[in-house]
């Protein structure tokens, strides 16, 4: 360890001389912009990372019927005996529980439909958001969904989120 530490130190102190300023210059390579663009697809709670595009409730209903209904049900309240569960209604559902609407875009884009994640277009996901949030009674059925409208949504349960207060039990 001591020897490696010394090596790291040497590499560090080399920084002024090295054009790139790297400590282990031979390890790793500069990240290509295409790779970052392809992989940096997460969407933050505040809407950062949401792509352009738009979708309506009716478009979303069609996508839902094709790609989601089998596991989340006709009424979006889950299917008995099938994992997936409810998306609206009582409990920890997207519309009644989740504090931030952009998280829906993030999660569906990365994880759903379960058997083919990553297969939906951005417009389709916006449509799904319009449809599911309208069915859950928290979004007007006639308003299209896009980055601005999704970010502006005020989720009913948001104020109930509190940071971890533990140790809470003595």
């Amino acid at each position: 360890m001591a020897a490696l530490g010394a090596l790291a130190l040497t590499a560090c102190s080399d920084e002024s001389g090295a054009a790139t300023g790297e400590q282990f210059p031979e390890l790793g390579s500069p990240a290509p912009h295409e790779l970052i663009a392809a992989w940096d697809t997460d969407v933050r709670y505040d809407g950062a990372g949401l792509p352009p595009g738009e979708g309506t409730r009716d478009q979303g209903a069609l996508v839902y019927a094709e790609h989601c209904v089998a596991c989340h049900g006709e009424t979006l309240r889950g299917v008995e005996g099938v994992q997936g569960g409810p998306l609206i209604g009582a409990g920890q559902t997207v519309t009644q529980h989740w504090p931030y609407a952009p998280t829906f875009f993030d999660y569906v884009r990365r994880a759903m439909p379960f058997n083919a994640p990553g297969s939906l277009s951005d417009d389709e996901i916006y449509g799904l958001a319009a449809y599911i949030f309208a069915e859950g009674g928290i979004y007007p059925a006639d308003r299209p969904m896009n980055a601005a409208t999704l970010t502006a949504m005020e989720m009913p349960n948001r104020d109930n989120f509190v940071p971890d207060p533990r140790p809470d039990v003595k």
Partner: protein
Amino acid sequence: MKDEKPEVLDVIGTAEDCDCKEGMFPDPGRRALLLGGAALAGTGLFAGRAGAEATQGASQHAVLDDPTSQPGPASGGGYGLRSQFETVSRWEFPLPQPGVSGSFTPLAGTHGTITPSGLHYEVHRGGVPTIDPARHKLLIHGKVKRAKVFTMADLYRFPSVTRTAFLECAGNGGMEYARPSMPHVQGTHGLTSNSEWTGVALSTLLREVGLEDGANWLLGEGSDAGMHTRSIPIDKAMDDAILAYAQNGEAIRPEQGYPLRLLLPGFEGNMSIKWLRRLDVTDKPSFTRPEVTTYADTLADGTTRYFTWEMEAKSVITFPSGTMKLPIPGTYEVTGLAWSGRGKITGVEVSADGGKTWARANLVAPVLSMAHTRFTFGWRWDGKPAILQSRATDETGYVQPTITALVDVRGVNSKDHNNGIQSWAIDAEGNVTNVHA
């Protein structure tokens, strides 16, 4: 694993119809395999095991009356197997959706503190991906001076660190808040395991890429279906986080994140992202789905806690424990495990009267920070009904609470982060069952 609650006792059999009571050390793994196999017959999940002669991980050989009378077969070959007589196994939680599943460590069937890699618990939400290490890449970008891509070959060349750490699923014991639910310790506590991990300190790589001002968080992302993501505070990343490529001396197992996983000692297991491929350095947390629902506890008053990171001090007696039987009154070595996500275990106490009186247990060296610690306690069972409990204290002075004390504060909707005291009742015949006391 919220929402997915098959009636557990129906699936794995109640203590009453358990066929294992004659033995003091029943083998929950084998029993679960049999019952699980029956319950899941037709799903194909257990196809290939039925009818196989040897237990998993072993090969079958003839047993001589006198093993000294002739030479045995050659050794187990290039990768050693366990004895054909050993059946201790993980128990796979029978969920309907293949690809979203978990398996539980047989804590009563392991010794010392290290969990054999093949018995380490696992939870996955998009199946276990098969990743060629020659093609795996780790991207670090965002608020860094030099966004970089590292291959596994790069990572193996950085200075390495090795440490022992437990990993515990936030949901370990989640089904025990409201009532005793699982019959044995594999079910009540089997979502914790302990390994020696080797890899590169995450701080080494973050210094390598150079953090910019406002680099307060990392978003870590896996390369499984569903690309599991968690926000990690930069302090933890710079303190003791490891990019682990090895577990117990060999490459980590596929279901543990091969070829590369994050390891955040002491934090709830799902933050130690498996199959890690991306670290995005950011100014704010992301509030990903697992952060707002899956691993966020909703309390009786309707509030939901987020970022419940450290697993608080906890302990459990593994012998004697649920579904076992003490054959006769007499002296037994009670043993179990204790751990804390906030540091070292400083003491474990044992009670045989449901928590009225406590006596100090023996801690077996080594006692390591954020690692399973073995405790033992010599106990004379007089043949009368008893309730055995253990209670851990960690170096912060925190004392493991009762489940009742947790429920008083959190209610029973909270499904994760249950570190309450486990009670095992022993009846006059010596049968051990899971109770709330």
